[in-house]
């Protein structure tokens, strides 16, 4: 037995269905964005040789010490990349990201030959801060196609301690 107010509940039901339909469009937009930035069929199996992540001396623009996965926040560090390990006809770049996803250093984009002199890729302190912010830092070497990074061909994650 359904009384008159049932029609009003049906109206609410239809309203939430309309909302759900719009929500599905939101998902479609999200998936489209994902597919644009993570295009399918772009996996080449290429791997860049990352020699390591070392403490960085900004005055002499060189690395110091041994390869490490953790650094105190008062020191800078840099990744060392062997660009010669890559084919010459691709476009690549290298980026450092902090734990908030901000780019905090990098080189490129360019061909491995163009980047051959930039094997040391240091991380930068974000102004107005004086030292590195604690957290995970991700270093990626990306292959680009059509101006968009489409594949990560090398990755290192290091920790900046509190």
């Amino acid at each position, binding site marked *: 037995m359904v009384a008159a107010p049932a029609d009003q*509940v049906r109206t609410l*039901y239809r*309203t939430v269905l309309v909302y759900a339909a719009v929500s599905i469009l939101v998902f479609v937009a999200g998936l489209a964005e994902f597919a644009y*930035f993570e295009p399918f069929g772009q996996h080449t199996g290429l791997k860049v040789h990352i020699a390591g992540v070392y403490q960085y001396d900004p005055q002499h623009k060189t690395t110091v010490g041994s390869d490490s996965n953790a650094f105190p926040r008062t020191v800078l560090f840099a990744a060392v990349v062997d660009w010669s390990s890559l084919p010459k006809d691709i476009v690549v770049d290298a*980026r450092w990201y902090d734990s908030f996803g901000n780019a905090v250093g990098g080189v490129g984009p360019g061909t491995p030959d163009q980047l051959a002199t930039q094997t040391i890729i240091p991380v930068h302190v974000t102004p107005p801060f004086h030292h590195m912010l604690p957290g995970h830092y991700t270093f990626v070497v990306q292959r680009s196609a059509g101006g968009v990074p*489409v594949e990560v061909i090398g990755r290192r994650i290091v920790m900046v301690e509190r």
Partner: protein
Amino acid sequence: MGAAVSARGIGSRPHRPARYTLAVAITIALIAVLVASSILNYVYLDTVAGRTSLYGLLSIAVIALGSFGGIRAIVRDPIERGRQYRRAGIFLGLAALAWLLLVDVIVFTDSAGPRIAVICALACVPTTAFGMLILRALDRNETEPWRLVLLAAVWGGVVATSLVIWAEGLWQAIAIRTLVPGPGLDVSMAFSAGILEELAKGCAVLLLFLVVRNEFDDVVDGIIYGAAVGLGFNFMESVSYMTNLYAVFSPEGVGAEAAGFQWYARQVLGLFFGHATYTAFVGAGIGIARQLPDMRRKVIAVVAGFVVAIAAHFSWDAWLSAFPIDKTFEIVEIHVRTLIITGPFTAALLAILFVGLHIEGQALADQFRKEAALGTGAILPEELSILMNPWPRFEQRVRALRRGGMRAYLLVARLQAAQIDLAMERWHRERGELDTPPEADDELRRRVLALRQELLAAVSGR
């Protein structure tokens, strides 16, 4: 509320509706997820929280089994046994909640130390309490019991956060190691947060719908419970972000500013434009399902509510970075950003809420009139104008306070609640939405009449 209770706390039932079986199945599944999450944390992360959670939950499970066996062996009377089971279940549930809260405290607040964690938590208490009071004020026709609204908030803050720790951590670990940093990764993380967090929070509303049906009447109740879960979740998440950012930025001397900004973003600007809105959509779907006649539409309404909640949550997490904040206009831009991304969802929710309140108000007024016309004495014609609006109801309670003190005030409050319960019961029965026998209505009338007698005695005896 146990299975033997019907019709708004009155009478006993000869059988348990199937929804209780579904509720038990969901509860067992959630406990399994919690235990699995603790084991995975223990094995792979080896954190203090993982061990604490694992040993605590296993201890509670052993005590639960012992209690079940003990009650079964000692108590022979089936009614008494059922009562003991419920009592043990409540205590063990509280024990599990306390244990999960301890784990949450370790996981979410240890980064900046206990002093900062306490300060952050204290800063979030008034705003969250304000949010809960606003929910109560919005629920103007038939206010939900505090115990259930608070239980919903506690679920959001303690259980839902515990449920998603492992799954979100795992998703994040895989995504960071496989995807290209940038918008694609942001979208992936947004799907993770939207799906996992809304499922974890929505389970609370679903369980309330299945177990406490007599306090879950319609779309308004669903929105209130859902928003309460969201406020609880938002509380714990705020404390977590505030303490974490304090720890990150304090060596640069701006820890307090970073934590304060998070407090404003999450506890002022995002108090309703955030988790409260998302999970209220889950509640809206379930509340609409409560009043639909057939199972197919019920399921569609519940799923639709979850879909909208996940989309609202996803939109914020995925497209937040599409609105870069310029330092010069930062204070304006963060408000505009919130209004643009979450504003449409909150407005859509408010539209459903106000239509729901209108339907509920009309239905109650109609039932008040019909009950008064019956002449049973449960609702008197002169009470109609009072019962239909919250302000005259409050004035009636204040008049009782002046005449008979606090006891009279409380009795009038209980009388009004019982009268509204009766009207709500009549509404559901008229729409064929009850699994209780018609005699339950008479029980409610008797309760109203008994309260009226008690009130008269309290006022005249003063």
